[in-house]
């Protein structure tokens, strides 16, 4: 117990030393380009802070520790306030105020767009939500929730039908025989280019069977037995290819993000690469 406490104190001291040294080095480093002393002191601190926070998050990979906890708690506080400010300025001041009050529009220096009585609907619903804090009339907040759920349901029903249903169905109207020129050319060009009929045709078959059997897999009200069961099994296989492929394809993006962070550490903080 005592030993581990001592160890963590030693680590804390080491971290502090690294932090201060980095701050000092970056401060002197920035002075060269003519910026004021205050600015370079500030920037030196900021670069060091960002590097510290980056390493604190990475340390979670080893195990949970106080540095991660610090970074996590700081992140929660700062980011919650960030989104509140953005919501306040862009939605409340940007969209709401210009529709309800000329005086307030002038105060916030946003162009007044004319009074619109309908903008009191969200105002009233918003107040209803806040009444949740009172135990007596708290039930009225459900009206606001009901409004939101109704909006979501109504808007999404048509949207999903339009793009995810209708468009995906019509995209699947593919010919199962593409540009037939005879057996010879058909088998001699196994490439992905537009002249490769074999692959074009095969692709269309795969898409047709894949979508069909995939849909069969999703059937709820019919038992997956016999021919239907076989089709549904093919459907699972198609889904598995989809998942495997998407997973593999994603790796690259994830590594890029790590490259980005390590570049920050090596380049902006340590100056090892340029």
């Amino acid at each position, binding site marked *: 117990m005592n030993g581990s406490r001592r160890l963590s104190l030693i680590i804390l001291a080491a971290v502090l030393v690294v932090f201060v040294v980095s701050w000092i080095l970056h401060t002197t480093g920035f002075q060269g380009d003519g910026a004021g002393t205050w600015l370079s002191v500030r920037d030196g601190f900021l670069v060091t802070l960002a590097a510290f926070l980056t390493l604190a998050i990475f340390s979670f990979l080893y195990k949970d520790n106080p540095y991660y906890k610090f970074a996590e708690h700081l992140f929660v506080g700062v980011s919650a306030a960030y989104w509140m400010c953005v919501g306040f300025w862009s939605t409340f001041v940007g969209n709401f105020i210009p529709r309800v009050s000329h005086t307030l529009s002038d105060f916030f220096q946003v162009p007044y767009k004319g009074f619109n009585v309908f903008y009191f609907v969200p105002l009233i619903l918003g107040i209803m939500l806040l009444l949740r804090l009172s135990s007596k009339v708290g039930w009225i907040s459900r009206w606001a929730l009901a409004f939101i759920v109704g909006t979501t349901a109504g808007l999404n029903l048509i949207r999903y039908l339009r793009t995810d249903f209708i468009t995906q169905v019509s995209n699947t*109207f593919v010919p199962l025989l593409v540009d037939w020129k005879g057996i010879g050319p058909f088998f001699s060009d196994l490439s992905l280019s537009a002249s490769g009929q074999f692959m074009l045709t095969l692709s269309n078959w795969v898409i047709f069977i894949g979508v069909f059997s995939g849909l069969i897999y999703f059937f709820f009200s019919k038992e997956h037995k016999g021919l239907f069961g076989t089709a549904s099994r093919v459907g699972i296989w198609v889904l598995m290819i989809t998942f495997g492929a998407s997973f593999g394809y994603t790796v690259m993006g994830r590594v890029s993000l790590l490259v980005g962070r390590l570049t920050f550490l090596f380049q902006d903080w340590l100056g090892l690469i340029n």
Partner: protein
Amino acid sequence: MFAKSKLSTPALACLIVIILVLNTFPVAAQDIVSADTGTVFIPAPPTGVTAVDFKYDRGERVEISWTLSADDNERGQVSGYNILRAGGESDDFVPAGTVAAGIGSYTDKDVESGTTYRYLVEAIHAGGTVPSAVSAAVIPDVELINWNLANLFIIALLIGGAVIYFISHAKRGKKLFVRKIAGLEAVDEAIGRATEMGRPILFIPGINDMDDVQTIAGITLLSRVAKVVADYDIKINMPVARSLVMTTARETIREAYIGAGRPDAYSDDMVRYITDEQFGYVAAVDGIMVREKPATCFYLGAFFAESLILAETGNSIGAIQIAGTAMPAQLPFFVAACDYTLIGEELFAASAYLSNEPRQLGSLKGQDVGKFIAMIAIAVGVVAATVAGAWGGTFFIRLSDIMHRLFTIRN
């Protein structure tokens, strides 16, 4: 045939000569404005200006089209067109818009329904503009019904009707068969495990707000989970990323506790708001996971990149994990890292499945009718496209065309 070729031969010869001439002389030789004389080349005006009311809108658009000026070519003698509009009785034409050379249409969106408008189009050239004749008058109109969306309406009616039919059909007490969904069969087992181990349940309803149906689907599942939780007095921990979701989830869990006859056991602390920021939220949830070590984790809702961070952390603490999302991009990660995954449609079916009420199950049957419609449409579309493409045939070409029209939204 003969006469045609007789005419076209000289025409072709002329064309070749023109092309040769154009290519021989550098472009500079035929300056649009000749510096020596100061004379300005004036291009021919655009012709045939028509203005028609845009169909199926609120009477706020007029579509204007015209035949390009004969001198509108790659030499840039016409640099664009001004569209001018006169409203009502006046002959005062005001600018309505400008388009680049080579474009012969414009949609004026600055009109009011019920007013009469006339249009003219000016070709813009280096020395000024050349106006066309004035178009016939047009009155933009409010159409009450958007007939362009008739196919969407029919499809919505078919699928929606099927769902509604089976919901009301089921009300009469007919029990419907529904296949097993592994992830949902496991819900009870997963909750039971938390009871045995005396550890909490973690419930994440995704990171989107209440304007996403997936979040609502997650909340409806929460109500099922909360009932069991309230009955067995298990600790539930629900960090959320949206204030509205917090409010809704509290309502849901509180009602579950009231239903179980133990309103005192409920506490608002079961659901807590963390932050709207995706990764700030994940950082906090990761912390909660390693510190409180929940026995069971539910991830039901809309997820983005955080899906795998959550699922891998949950895996490292040995939790049973049940995930469900309609985000196709995140499904692979849940499938790889969680014990059970509800794939897309299954997430929306889940609450109906767990409720075991005939009306809810009926809606699943309605969904299946939707799938059946999709499959029939795909089969017909594919056959028509194949036959029409390979062998032709009026019937199949027309059928293929109809299928495409039925499943294309024009608006």
